[in-house]
Each structure stands twice: as C-alpha cells, then as structure tokens.
C-alpha cells in the first residue's frame, strides 16, 4: 500500500475504415504505444466514412481515421468535428485490365482511348465512387485535365468500393480507381491488371485519409490527443523505416488471415502508399480539389477548409 496509482487512462473510441491508410492506427495500438501514453483505445471498424461520421456526430466515437471529404461535409452540416492530423495522401490509383490495359501500353493518351473505342465499338468503362467523392473527383481530374481524353470516349460508373474491385476482376470494367492494399492483391490475383496512373499523377498531393476528432474531445482531452499524435507520427515513421514490421502489426487488424504479411508489406512499399502525418500540406490540396469539384459541377458551394483543421496537437506533438 501507499503506492500512488497512475492517473486513470483516457479512454478514446476510434473509428476506422479497413484500408491501408489507417495503418498508423493499427501500429500505434498494436505496438502498445497508445497504452504507454496513458490512452486506452477502443477501435471500431466502419464500412464507410459516412457511417463513421454519423456515429461521431451522435457522440458514439471520439476520433476516426477517415477520408477528408465527408468530414468537411459533416462540418458544413453542423457537426462539431475537426481534423488534427493527416495519415496518408495520394491513395487512389487507376488500375486497368485486359484489352484496355494492353491498348494503353502503360501510357494513357487521348489517342489510345479513342483507338480503344474505335477497336471495340464501345466506350471505356471506368468504375469509381459517386460524383462528389474524392475518387471521382481525382479520376475526372486525371482524365480530363491530365490526359485530356475526349469525354465521349469514357463511361464513368459509380459504385461502392468493394464492388469496384469485383467488377474490375470480373471484367465488367476496363479500369477503376482502387487503393492499397487491394491494388497489390488485385495485381497478384490477375496479372492482366496494371497500374495506369499513380495518385500523384492523378492529382498532385491528392488528399486522403486524415484523423478527425470530436469537438468535445478536443476540449477535454487535449493532452491525450497530443500524445496520440506523437504515437501516430512514430507509426508513420515506422512504416517508412521498417515496412516489414509495420506489415506484421497491421496484418493483425487489416487482413488477419485474409492476406499474408508479405502482401501487406508489398502494399506498403508500392507507389500507392504515401504516409504523411503533417496536416499543414493538406489544406491547399483540399482547396485545389474543392475548386476542381466546383468547376465540374459535382458540388455546389465551397466549404471553408482551413477552419476545419486544428494544427495545435500536431504541432505540439512534433515540437521538441
């Protein structure tokens, strides 16, 4: 007796979507770094960002690793949510298969699209997520701004993330926007699948997955958030330094028994993975993207971006 007990750990419920971009969360939990920092994490998986946001708006989770777009929308609708750090950027890539991939021969040009249409008598079918979503926006940017293909030669089909992969493998699509780790998995399963464009080619600094936190939590557990971000930064560094180790830990969460660690490691090493913890660079990228969204008419207003970001905790975490 007489031994002072450590302060009760802060409990944080963190939501995530089972994608590679959430890997830092898995690492900081799996390696026990959060516990060391006095934070007791409870991880909750969501199938999609909007569901996670709804849970957060209803106060059911405290933080989440999710796409930046739905967070901004939710803020605009009155949800008290802020972005405190970044996790990954430039996630989405374009993968093609079969005839179309061959026709392009590794280099997408307006001519190769036109030729494909002429040869096959149909438009190029590209699968992505609904209009207004990040994947759709960056795909359109790549097609019409970067490659500058004739809109009449492509048919953009919007569907769920899972469905995109399945439709691609089933041959119902010629190309699709997908992200790691499924890029690696898909390529392993079907050698006909090849990468047509990296995230950076599609949209420089393409915004991706961020960490968002409920306003309430920011007020009450600011310290804990700083500590969490320290662990997050450490996890991002680990991925860069030791992908094998990172893969081993993340595999427990992401692909437990569904994928081997080697595949995951390959995914970490692929050009589709770019982990960046610093949120500062994200703001202009998001603003650029918003502008483009407005330009193609898939969003009505410009949502103020900068005020959605709260850099304090990140800055505190990397100071010193």
């Amino acid at each position: 007796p007489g031994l002072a007990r450590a302060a009760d750990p802060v409990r944080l419920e963190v939501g995530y979507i089972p994608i590679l971009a959430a890997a830092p969360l898995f690492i900081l939990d799996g390696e026990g770094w959060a516990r060391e920092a006095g934070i007791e994490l409870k991880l909750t998986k969501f199938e999609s960002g909007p569901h996670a946001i709804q849970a957060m708006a209803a106060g059911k989770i405290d933080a989440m690793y999710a796409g930046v777009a739905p967070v901004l929308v939710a803020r605009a609708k009155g949800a008290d949510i802020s972005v405190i750090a970044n996790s990954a950027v430039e996630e989405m890539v374009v993968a093609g298969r079969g005839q179309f991939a061959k026709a392009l021969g590794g280099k997408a040009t307006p001519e190769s699209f036109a030729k494909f249409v002429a040869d096959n008598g149909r438009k190029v079918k590209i699968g992505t997520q609904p209009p207004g979503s990040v994947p759709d926006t960056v795909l359109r940017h790549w097609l019409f701004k970067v490659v500058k293909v004739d809109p009449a030669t492509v048919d953009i089909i919007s569907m769920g993330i899972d469905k995109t992969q399945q439709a691609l493998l089933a041959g119902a699509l010629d190309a699709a926007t997908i992200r790691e780790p499924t890029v690696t998995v898909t390529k392993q399963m079907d050698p006909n699948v090849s990468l047509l464009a990296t995230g950076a080619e599609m949209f420089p600094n393409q915004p991706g997955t961020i960490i968002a936190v409920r306003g309430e939590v920011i007020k009450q557990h600011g310290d804990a958030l700083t500590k969490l971000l320290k662990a997050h930064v450490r996890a991002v560094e680990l991925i860069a330094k030791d992908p094998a180790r990172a893969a081993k830990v993340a595999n427990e969460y992401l692909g437990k028994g569904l994928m081997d660690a080697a595949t995951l490691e390959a995914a970490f090493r692929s050009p589709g993975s770019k982990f960046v913890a610093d949120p500062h660079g994200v703001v202009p990228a998001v603003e650029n993207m918003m502008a483009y969204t407005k330009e193609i008419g898939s969003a009505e207003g410009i949502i103020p971006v900068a005020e959605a970001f709260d850099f304090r905790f990140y800055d505190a975490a990397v100071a010193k």
Partner: protein
Amino acid sequence: MRQPLKLHTSVALSALGVAVFLLAWEALARSGVVPSGLLPSPSAVPAAFVAEVRAGTWQTMVLASLSHYLSGLFLGTVLGIAFGTAAAMWGVWDAAQAWVVRMLRPIPSIAWIPFAIIWFGVSEAAATFLIALTVFWINYYATYAAVRGVDKDLIELGYAFGQGGLVPRLFKIVLPGALPGILSGVRAGLGQGWMTVVAAELFGIAGLGSRMSDASGLLATHIVVLYMVTIAALYGVCDFLFMQVQQRVLAWQK
C-alpha cells in the same frame, strides 16, 4: 369478429397515424440528438423534391428503379410461386432440392453481386436479378406452406370429378386453395422488393437506390430522405392497390 370500418373512419385514422408519425420524426430531428444536418426532418423533403425534379434526376431515377423493381418483382414472384408449388407437390423433387435450397437461401444479396456482375455485367439485368432473388425466396416459402396446407378433402373432390389430372388439379384446386397464402407471400415480396432496390443498385446501376447511396456517401441526407419518402410513396401505392385486388380475389372468404 371484426367489423369492417366505414371508409371515412379508416381514412381519417390513417391520416392521423401518418400525422403522428411525421410529427414524431420532426420532433426527433429537431431535438438535437444529432446535428440536424445529419438527420433531416420531413419538412426538408419538399425543397429537396423541387430541386431534384427541376434537375430531372427524380423522374429519371424513379423510372429506372420502377423498371428494375417491376421486372424483378414479376420474375421473382412467378418463379417463387412455381418452384414453391413444385416442391410442395412432388415429394421426390422436394427431397432432391431441400438441401440445395437450404444452401442457397441464406446467401445475402450482397454476396450475389459478384455473380450478378459476372453474368449480366453492370446492367439493368443484374439489378433485376438481385431484386428477383429476394422476392423469389419469400414467395417460394409462402407458396410451399400454402400448397402443403390445401385441404386434402378438396383434392379428393377433384379426383372424384375427373379433375385429378395435374393441370386441373393444379389450377382448379391447389392454386385457388393456396391463394390466400400465396397472396400473403406476394404482398410481403412487394415490400421486400423495394428494400432490395437499394442493394441491387449499389454497383453502378442508376436508380433511386444508387442515388440514395450516392447521396448518403456524401452525407447529403436531405436527398436520402427524399428518396426514402419516394420509395415509401411508391410502395404505399403498390401495396394499397394490391390490397384492393386481393380483397376482390378473395371475396369468397367470409
């Protein structure tokens, strides 16, 4: 046991029920449990409706979904009744299919989607297939039970009057006798079909469902609610008409 209500009483009661429901919803939406942007109130619907109709989206989506729905419903209902009847009538066929059915039955629409894509591509037919599938099961089981429950005395009557052959037995005794049960299955399928429209349109086939899931992906909840109300209205009309027809068809029931 149950007196039929006067028409105007029942209309008034229905209106009252709907009003109470809408008020409760509005109250919940405004209570602030959830930011109102994320749980829109019914009063947000009219504005969304006007916007969508102006853009022409609403009409297109309704027509597209109606066509998936109606063809899926038709296929699923007809096949479900046919297979249910066959299984209920022939012991051999019943035994042979019983466990295959048990294997296929619990497979969710979502798991069928890859097959739908493979067989039909990203096409209307794939959506129809998925809707037909759910509707099929409901009708299959309802018909099976209804046919098994047909009064054996009436079947005997058929044999006694030269109507024991397959066709007359089926169409003059078994199906009319099973009709109340079959129609109850059809009615349940009517609703299940709409419930499945969304899942069936998850993979790039345009319609109410895809519009809804797109909107929900972008947290455009007022649009989600608009289409939910649209589906409710479409279903309500289907179901109401069906009940009227059913009442006619089953007039022989006391």
